[in-house]
């Protein structure tokens, strides 16, 4: 079984936010108005964490794209009372929207706070309603959602490979954020397959994962910034 994972090179990341936009479009993430947004109800399956270091004028801003880390030992799936979130055979932590009762336990249990709740009915600007991605289900209000590693693309890639009568190749399955990155700072592939770029990059001396001490074993690696 492949173990899908991501590597993000922070050296290359400019913090442009293209991945965030691509993710919103790809996953049909509802758009909330400014009022709701001010309350903290924006849904960001892909987010960019920005930190500032130093005092003015010596300020350094750092950016860190943050998808779901699809942990090997996810704290969120353990606590779900109804199997609405689970880790599938290929290591992707998935949500089952029609199963979710909206208790938000997974959301509070996630140490990375990557899960978001649909506080209101999903809404889009009128023009967007005509152009929703048909491959991704629209979530009703009252359920939890998060980054899916664009698992629908895996489905498509597998079917395409089956039609062509070949195995899945590197690059057949890539999430929208990785695909959209203008500086090619993100890599995606099978972490267990030595031929894939990600499995080589994860061995780099620059590679690290967030909060490794928690033992969650995230499948998203970062390559630290070097001056």
């Amino acid at each position, binding site marked *: 079984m492949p173990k899908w994972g991501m590597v993000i090179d922070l050296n290359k990341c400019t913090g442009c936010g293209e991945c965030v936009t691509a993710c919103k479009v790809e996953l049909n993430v509802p758009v909330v108005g400014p009022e*709701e947004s*001010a*309350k*903290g*109800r*924006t849904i960001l399956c892909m*987010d960019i*964490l*920005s*930190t500032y270091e130093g005092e003015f004028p010596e300020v350094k801003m750092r950016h860190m794209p*943050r998808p779901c880390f699809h942990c090997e030992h996810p*704290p969120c799936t*353990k*606590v*779900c*009372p*109804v*199997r*609405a979130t689970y880790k599938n055979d290929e290591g992707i932590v998935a949500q089952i929207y029609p*199963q*979710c*009762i*909206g*208790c*938000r*336990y997974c*959301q*509070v*249990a996630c*140490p*990375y*706070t990557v899960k*978001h*709740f*649909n*506080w*209101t*009915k999903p809404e889009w600007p009128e023009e967007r309603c005509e152009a929703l991605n048909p491959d991704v289900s629209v979530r*009703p*209000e*009252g*359920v*939890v959602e998060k980054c899916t590693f664009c698992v629908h693309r895996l489905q498509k890639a597998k079917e395409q490979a089956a039609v062509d009568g070949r195995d899945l190749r590197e690059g057949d399955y890539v999430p929208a954020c990785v695909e959209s990155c203008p500086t090619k700072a993100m890599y995606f592939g099978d972490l267990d397959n030595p031929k894939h770029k990600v499995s080589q990059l994860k061995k780099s001396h620059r590679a690290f994962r*967030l*909060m490794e001490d*928690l033992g969650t074993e995230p499948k998203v690696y970062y390559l630290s910034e070097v001056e």
Partner: protein
Amino acid sequence: MSELRHNTFEDEDLIRPIEQTGPGFYLMVAILLGVIVFAGYTYIRQVFLGLGVTGLAQPVSWGFYIINFVFFIGISHAGTLISAILRLSKAEWRRPITRMAEVITAIVLAIGGLHPILDLGRPDRMLHLFTEGRLQSPLLWDVTSITAYFAASTVYLYLPMIPDIAILRDRGTRPRWLYEFLAWGWRGTEHQKKVLERAINILMVMVIPIAISVHTVISFIFSMTIQPGWHSTIFGPYFVVGAIFSGIAALLIVMIAFRKAFDLGKYLKLIHFQYLSTLLLIMSFLWFYFTFAEYLTGFYGHEPNEMRVFLYKFTGDYAPWFWTMGICNFLIPVVILVNPKTKKIPGILIASISVVIGMWLERLIIVVPSLANPRLPYPTGIYIPSLTEWSLFAGGVAVFILAYMLFAKLFPIISIWEIQEGREESVHAVAERLKSYLPDPPSEQLLTEKLGSKR
């Protein structure tokens, strides 16, 4: 026997509130129903509009509903647990208290147990818990253990009520069929007394571990996650102590209220309040000890994530609530209850109200700050509950008061047969028991031996 008929019944005071209803009762019911209807309206509105009508957001996605869930279940520990412990330890002063305590448990448990449903984004999918539930999730542990506690505490409330219901049945109090139905054919024969006593004895031993499991399991909701401020081994006992603490305070408030409303000064004497408030004082010290141990370990370890939550409570946005909690839970009750001059009913009432408020704040301080300080640098706002949450909180309290009033309208709030048993048998029994504690008098044989050696 026959002259007894003409005597007025000795415990008439306990039955009068059932047979006579004043205008105040109806007024109170109307007000409470108003609050409940409004809460019902806001809940239905929430079901249709989604949880967006609350003040919850990212990252504080658990708020009033979960706080009140923990709070109400905590109050529920007043009853059955305390009454079981007092029965088990043969504390004779328990007699007028146990029933009141048990009623609190049964009602508050039902209210508290339903609170997670208010919190659900999709209450229409509740059935998934039954068809697809995962017993690995602490939420399911809660469902199981609260159900068990609710069942056990209602049975434990009901069984000691049977003889009293039989009294009402024999007096012909209306509705007759209800008392006839609930009395289960009680005639007060020796055999029946033995059966009932045995059942109560088994139950009170059983109910203590169940009660403790309930609040331990509720603390597990938090402590099973790896979030700073929650992931603590002390949480189980800490919650249990807090629960008993707030439970005793609630029990004292209820007792003082009924003493006033039903004029029960004859039964609920100052001594009962003083004994119970001594327990409250002990729990206050115990609560302080646990709180101290919990926060000192966090502070001393100085783990950055833990420290952010710690500082948020001690000096940050939640400092006002945190220090109010300390004053309400420790300073006020201790100052009032250590001084014999203030350890009178008004003082005890103030201390109890302060503890209930303080314990509610404690639940707030456990739930929100850990969520408001995520490990990663997200923008966070301040959680401000909306009108919906306030009205559902008020609704929960109103349901409690209303249910308690209706109970007091149908059944004696103080166990009549236990009072009578106390009057008739306890004085003798306690004297006997006391004798058994004392060193045995020298036996005949020993005496003769001693005398013999002298000779």
